[in-house]
């Protein structure tokens, strides 16, 4: 299958020319909620192709950036005292209230980075004691953990479950007026799991144009064109990434998630509690809960590091370059806030691609 036309410079420039022809005079502000979208926007210079009145901002689409110290600190405690903690590479360097898992490992804590939860299971060494998987991510990632739980685990294997849900978070943020936008670019791989229906509420309740977008440069420009069209013709949910997203999503993945997890209110770092925006283990799987197993106490803490403006960056209200720490005290080699740590963090992406997001 040849997907190279989605990266074709000629097609992207033709689409951008068309966008300039149809754009209205007033300013339109579109938000995406996916670090992979921000990567495409910054890396391919999409913002530089847009008419000046079209703004594309990044929302809270980096899962490790919104994972709270109250989740990271217990993972560090478990790695120090109780078990080998496995997690995804993105999570490794994110600071908790005093340090990151990376820094804890440098001091002797047992932390291992894996590409997949299945790799963590393969790497379990029973002689080395219990193992815990720090399971973070949105709807794209939660079914993977549900799948391994459903199919059976090695002995003494537990989880810290820190999964968050995108559609309820968008609803909560729009409902509270904390984000003011003229359209949403929805994440293609979250949508691969959840389908198109969970976004209908954004159109019905808020009249917001919605497009589900793929990750190539042409996908993004076509998606922005669609939002401009909806601004004139009326809001709807349009699926630009139909090659991967089906209206019903991935039903098997959703069933597995429902079997293993239940929806709960969730703190988002720098943002606070958002109703029904998280997942926790169902009661029948509570023996897999590492916090209960090792009797680790948690203290509610969703604060950003002191002086850090990541909370404004996450809501699209501050471009990273306007943070006083950006590229001075806060760099990928020496990050202050989580958005400079992860490859999905807006600050890190801007830093690596010229500092202006385009």
């Amino acid at each position, binding site marked *: 299958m040849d997907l190279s036309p989605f990266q074709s410079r000629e097609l992207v420039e*033709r689409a951008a020319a068309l966008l300039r022809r149809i754009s209205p005079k007033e300013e339109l502000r579109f938000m995406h909620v996916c670090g992979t979208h921000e990567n495409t926007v910054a890396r391919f210079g999409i913002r530089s192709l847009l008419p000046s009145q079209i703004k594309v901002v990044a929302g809270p689409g980096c899962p490790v950036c919104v994972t709270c110290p109250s989740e990271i600190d217990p993972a560090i405690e478990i790695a120090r005292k109780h078990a080998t903690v496995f997690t995804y590479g993105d999570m490794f360097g994110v600071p908790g209230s005093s340090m990151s898992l990376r820094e804890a490992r440098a001091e002797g804590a047992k932390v291992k980075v894996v590409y997949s939860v299945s*790799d963590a299971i393969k790497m379990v060494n029973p002689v080395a004691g219990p193992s815990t998987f720090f399971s973070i991510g949105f709807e794209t990632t939660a079914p993977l953990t549900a*799948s391994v739980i459903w199919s059976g685990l090695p002995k003494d294997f537990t989880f810290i479950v820190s999964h968050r849900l995108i559609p309820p978070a968008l609803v909560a943020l729009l409902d509270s007026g904390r984000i003011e936008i003229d359209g949403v670019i929805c994440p293609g791989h979250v949508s691969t799991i959840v389908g198109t229906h969970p976004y209908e509420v954004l159109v019905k309740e808020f009249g917001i144009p919605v497009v589900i977008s793929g990750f190539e440069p042409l996908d993004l420009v076509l998606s922005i064109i669609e939002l401009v069209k909806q601004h004139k013709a009326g809001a709807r949910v349009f699926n630009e990434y139909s*090659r991967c997203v089906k209206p019903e999503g*991935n039903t098997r993945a959703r069933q597995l998630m429902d079997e293993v997890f239940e929806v709960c209110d969730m703190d988002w770092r720098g943002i606070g509690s958002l109703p029904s925006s998280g997942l926790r283990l169902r009661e029948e799987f509570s023996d897999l809960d590492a916090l209960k197993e090792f009797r680790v106490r948690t203290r509610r803490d969703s604060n950003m590091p002191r002086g850090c403006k990541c909370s404004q960056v996450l809501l699209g209200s501050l471009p990273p370059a306007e943070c006083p720490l950006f590229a001075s005290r806060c760099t990928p080699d020496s990050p202050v806030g989580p958005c400079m740590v992860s490859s999905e963090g807006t600050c890190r992406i801007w830093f690596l691609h010229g500092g202006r997001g385009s």
Partner: protein
Amino acid sequence: MCLAIPGRLEEIQDRNGIVDFGGVRRTVDLSLLEKCKVGDYVIVHAGFAIQILDEKDALETLDLLRQLEATMD
């Protein structure tokens, strides 16, 4: 974090498959797919195939630009 990349399914072995990512072959968990066959292009996230790519839909999306340009002329 939600990064997922497409590859061609080369072999199926029970719940796993071998997927070719432009020359790099890796074992991928297929348990989240209802059905799949050798030759399918699957989209893979953190070691799991989460969907089969639909070529017809890809071509239809590419055709959107031509349709949009036609309506502008």
